[in-house]
């Protein structure tokens, strides 16, 4: 009896011959994006499949032989896509078609081991190419302005979607979903009718929209995209690509997603820092920064640049004032050989300046520090903090502007 209570169906997958697609890069900025865990396309497709969203075959291969094997059970034309946690796979040559075994082998050999933005390709996704009539874009993300989940669809899907968004925004339908009701049948149908025109395809499309929203919400995604969703010559809609990011704050509800986390070498330091309650991003300047609060840390970097310097990193020690954290922060900061001077900018609030000072003394004891340290302490217990540091070599200044100027002069 129990089986019936699991209300989700796994849908059929559609196979057929044809063209694949490339996906372009989009660079975002700021601290929020760093909080969004990403997974591979093949993993996102696995989730799509569970939620009943049609995907092409989802054969993941880790060796050339596996790709050849996958070709053998194909219908004669396959797409091979590198699985790495960055975009621009197409541009980098990480996506190839193969119409016979030799091509499959050549393509696989070319892709495996390829470096895409510093990441080595270790897995590829292989599926029968589809015969595509048209490409659509579907995306879901949280929207600050409407305080809701925003659904975006366009009949101009594929690689140019952002150009479409900029040049012909009217070609993108945006729809704010009320979380109390989800994406209702009539809403999905009306959006799909506008998108697909034909009612038969619109009904299939509406199902995909509803399932994608359910998938987005149930998985606490922060971004879910199908680009492109393709209409095949047989009149089927298939998610040719799949992208899912997740809300880090909600990963405690999704241990299996958390388990998929892969740390790129670049991220390792950041992750390590995060584990210690620090927010760290490595940059390429010479002035190591230690600041409490992300906004103040950004403003500090801006100030260094404004005065002609170059920050070596972004390092936010957060709101607590555990001296041990300060020691760790100094250790991470100084592990970068480019750092010629350290600038510490603390505005005490929750963070107490005396705690920071104690942590610094401890760090000076434990780590051999050869670069000059400029420090500005103000706010809660600043006086006590300065007294603690009175006997040290640290260069005490009063404002962040002064600190930046001093640090730059010492590079």
């Amino acid at each position, binding site marked *: 009896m129990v089986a019936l209570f699991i209300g989700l169906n796994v849908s059929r997958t559609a196979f057929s011959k044809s063209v694949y697609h490339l996906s372009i890069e989009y660079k975002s900025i700021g601290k929020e994006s760093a909080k969004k865990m990403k997974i591979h396309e093949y993993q996102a497709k696995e989730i799509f499949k569970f939620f009943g969203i049609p995907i092409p075959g989802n054969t993941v291969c880790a060796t050339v032989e596996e790709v050849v094997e996958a070709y053998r059970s194909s219908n004669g034309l396959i797409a091979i896509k590198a699985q790495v946690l960055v975009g621009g796979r197409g541009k980098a040559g990480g996506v190839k078609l193969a119409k016979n075994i030799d091509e499959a082998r050549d393509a696989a050999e070319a892709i495996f081991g390829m470096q895409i933005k510093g990441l080595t390709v270790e897995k590829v996704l292989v599926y029968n190419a589809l015969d595509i009539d048209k490409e659509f874009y579907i995306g879901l993300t949280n929207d600050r302005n409407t305080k809701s989940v925003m659904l975006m669809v366009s009949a101009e899907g594929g690689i140019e979607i952002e150009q479409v968004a900029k040049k012909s925004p009217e070609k993108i339908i945006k729809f704010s979903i009320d979380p109390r009701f989800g994406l209702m049948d009539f809403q999905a149908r009306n959006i799909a009718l506008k998108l697909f025109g034909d009612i038969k395809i619109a009904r299939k499309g509406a199902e995909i929209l509803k399932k994608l929203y359910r998938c987005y919400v149930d998985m606490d995604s922060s971004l879910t995209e199908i680009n492109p969703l393709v209409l095949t010559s047989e009149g089927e809609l298939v998610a040719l690509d799949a992208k899912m990011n997740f809300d880090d704050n*909600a990963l405690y509800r999704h241990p299996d997603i958390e388990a998929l986390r892969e740390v790129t070498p670049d991220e390792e330091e950041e992750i390590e820092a995060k584990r210690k309650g620090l927010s760290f991003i490595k940059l390429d300047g010479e002035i190591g920064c230690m600041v409490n609060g992300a*906004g103040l840390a950004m403003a500090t970097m801006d100030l260094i640049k404004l005065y002609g310097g170059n920050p070596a990193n972004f390092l936010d020690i957060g709101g607590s004032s555990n001296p041990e954290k300060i020691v760790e922060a100094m250790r991470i900061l100084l592990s970068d050989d480019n750092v010629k001077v350290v600038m510490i900018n603390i505005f005490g609030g929750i963070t107490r300046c005396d705690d920071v000072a104690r942590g610094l003394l401890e760090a000076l004891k434990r780590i051999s520090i050869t670069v000059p340290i400029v420090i500005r302490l103000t706010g809660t217990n600043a006086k006590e903090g300065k007294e603690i540091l009175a006997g040290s070599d640290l260069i005490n200044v009063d404002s962040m502007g002064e600190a930046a100027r001093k640090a730059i002069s010492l590079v």
Partner: protein
Amino acid sequence: MSILIDKNSRVIVQGITGRDGAFHAASMREYGTNVVGGTSPGKGGQFVNGIPVFDSVEKAVRETGADTSILFVPARFAADAICEASDGGIELVVAVSEGVPTLDVIKSIKFMESGGTKLIGPNSPGLISPGKAKVGILPGNIFKEGTVGLISRSGTLTYEVINELTRSGFGQSTCIGIGGDPVVGLHYIELLTMFENDPQTEAVVLIGEIGGDAEEKAAEFIEKSMTKPVAAFIAGRTAPPGKRMGHAGAIISSGSGTAAEKIEAFERVGVPVAKEPEEIPKLIGVKL
């Protein structure tokens, strides 16, 4: 006057028996805030630093007439606590909790809508109407009562700016940290409207950050609807480009979220943007 909170605000602390709740309840009361109670399920009848504890917001409101609450509950319980506050009749909820799942925030905001409750946060340091009341974790001693309203997405950066304002002799009417999460309650536009209507406020300082297009939207609003002078500061002018975030983020925003775009949007509508915090007092457009 001031906006949102003042001497008459009757404040409860949700999660008052926790370490942070107890500490900040005392600290707010010390500042002069009228902290009338706190909640902690199952601990009704106890007292924390002399403040009575109730099992539920409903009871706390019934017994104390509270109209404002501040949450110090773990992130995964925060959205529910926001809803409880709204359901219990609280008019303004301040959520300090960091790390609340975004979809929980969205749901709790929709829940509050029907009740007309206002939310500050989550991931907010709270707000203060200097000389009147503090509902948050901001260091009270740097503030000074006056005529400048302040809205910020940031925490310590706000303190830095406040410090410059106070040092230059500009006191503040109300200062609000709206919280740094992807989705938060009251945002620039709602708060600008309140400042526009507040007799005490003569000018507004807006502290933004890179990402999203809230600052651009605020600039549009200022052009259309604000008569009082506004000055801005944007953190992250030199922040490195971040990670790939898909097309959706780009499509949803009018711009790409860079500081340059935000600064341009403000300057286009006559809002001066400071290059560094020190510069802000010079730009706020009112005389001492």
